[in-house]
């Protein structure tokens, strides 16, 4: 069995890279949000003095869309870090094996939620996307507004698979150094 895990572990660098890239995108989205919002304030306060500064109508919708992508992508990162808030109050009283089993159950459930978000989300996003547009940018499809949901689903699945794999591996490979 350990042989199998050794082979599988070779995929780990790919995960490290995926994590880094998603984190990079999240940082860019956060920076974009801060800059666009500040630009809108500057445009409103100084626009009458500086001709090229404006407070365009699209800022709000664009900022919110960036935030949606950042929220769902970063949430997927937290799956890998195991950082999501959970009730760990009674962990001390639960045997280790039981905890491991509970972890796997929770991870499978999150994986299922990820699948639902991917499938239903994609169907919804493409249906609405072919019919609706941003209010402030009438040429931009609402597809992009709701795409974060299937994207989140996909990212959740990717990182959950690794988490589940690690749990199963822990059963077979004791105490790796």
């Amino acid at each position, binding site marked *: 069995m350990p042989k199998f895990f050794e082979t599988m572990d070779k995929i780990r660098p790919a995960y490290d890279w995926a994590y880094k890239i998603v*984190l990079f995108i*999240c*940082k860019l989205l*956060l*920076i974009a*949000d*801060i800059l666009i*919002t*500040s630009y*809108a*304030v500057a445009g409103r*306060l100084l626009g009458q003095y500086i001709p090229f500064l404006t407070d365009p109508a699209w800022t*709000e919708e664009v*900022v*919110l*869309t960036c*935030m*949606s992508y*950042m*929220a*769902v992508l*970063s*949430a997927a*990162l*937290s*799956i890998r*870090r195991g*950082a*999501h*808030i*959970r*009730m*760990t*109050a*009674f*962990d001390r009283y639960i045997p280790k094996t039981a*905890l491991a089993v*509970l*972890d796997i*159950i*929770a991870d499978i*459930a*999150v994986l*299922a*939620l990820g699948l*639902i*978000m991917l499938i*239903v*989300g994609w*169907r*919804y*996003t493409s249906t609405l996307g072919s019919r609706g547009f941003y209010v402030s940018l009438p040429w931009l499809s609402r597809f992009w*507004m*709701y795409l*974060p*949901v299937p994207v*989140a689903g996909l990212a959740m699945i990717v990182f959950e698979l690794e988490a589940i794999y690690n749990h199963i591996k822990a059963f077979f490979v004791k105490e790796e150094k």
Partner: protein
Amino acid sequence: MDTQSLAILVLLGSFFVMIFLRFPIAYAVGLSSVFCMLVQGNSLNDVCRLMVKGISSFSLMAVPFFITMGVLMGSGGISDKLIALANSCVGWMRGGLAQVNVVASYFFGGISGSASADTASLGSILIPMMVDEGYDADFSTAVTITSSCEGLLVPPSHNMVIYATTAGGISVGSLFLAGYLPAALLAASLMIGSYIISVKRGYPKGEKFSLKKFIIQLGKSIWALAAVIIVVVGVVGGLFTATESAAIAVIYSLIVSVFIYKGLNWKGVWKALEECINTLSIVLILIATSSVFGYCLTTLHVPDMAAAAITSLTSNKIVLILLLNLILLVLGCIMDMAPIILIATPILLPIATGICGLDPIQFGIMVVLNCGIGLLTPPVGAVLFIGSAVGKTPMEKVVKATLPFYGCMILCLLLVSFIPQISLIIPKLLGGYIPTNF
């Protein structure tokens, strides 16, 4: 059983089961909503739509911005400056460093608004300092964690923004101003508590008060404190909305940390952003899934039923207000702050504003203070855990040492619950009070 009752049962039942099975709360919230919608025979499209809508609120954008501002300022090395400032104010008192701890948290709370960040950054400097001067480690940790809750109330506070958005129609500016006095009350009660204990145990005092020293320290800290002034004056004075002020504050704190305090270089800023993303990742997805959960609750009329159930117990206002606090405290013991605000507000706010006749702003302060106490109580208390790690003291010992301070906090909670003016007088005096219309 009709579909509606079944849907409610599935929604709440599966939620609690999953919580106790140690599911990540954000996803337990999402999954129970999915189950509920399936029972109702609704298309799951709404789950997708509501998740995006939940995060797509411009007012809510203040949350990531304030968190970013706190992280940038915190990494930029302001902790020691604020501690020095607090020391020049109250270091001369009996139990000087304990008093410094309480006052420094008031300043720091203005900038970070996060009790965990406060405990981690101030605590890791102050607790060793206190132990060196002969304070007991458990007492030092207890003072650190309780005083860190001031930051939840001192504006700007992203938890207040979450409350305001969840409640709907509440002015963030009013809520911000409302936090000053309750936070000061909390600080005062903690200072008195520390004083009494310090006298009993013969803890030392610091150097005599010197106005010159105070002014020097104020000069050093002013750049950091100015961030808070920018936000509060900007929002109350009408230059910008809360969200915009938060974005401006991020840029300001970047400039202060990099160019004035020089605690951060550009590489450090890029690294600090990772910490922002890590914090945000936990909060934002909760907001997204809670929006679906809240929609299910509202459309199933759960808040109305809860109100009817609670008021059938008693119509005595005082008992009802105590009951609301009790519910929030119990939730606080087993859950974290953001999920409580997001899930309990839609259910409890109608009761608070309706039968109890509380102002939604006052109730907001109550919710935040209750959640603050919850952060310090076992079994689930993030700040308690961080405190015991930073203070290198077992959790049980910290809890024991915190007992008198829990008393101080409960006292504040009762005062805030029954004297609306504590929350409302500052917004009213400064003309920032905006009555809520639903």
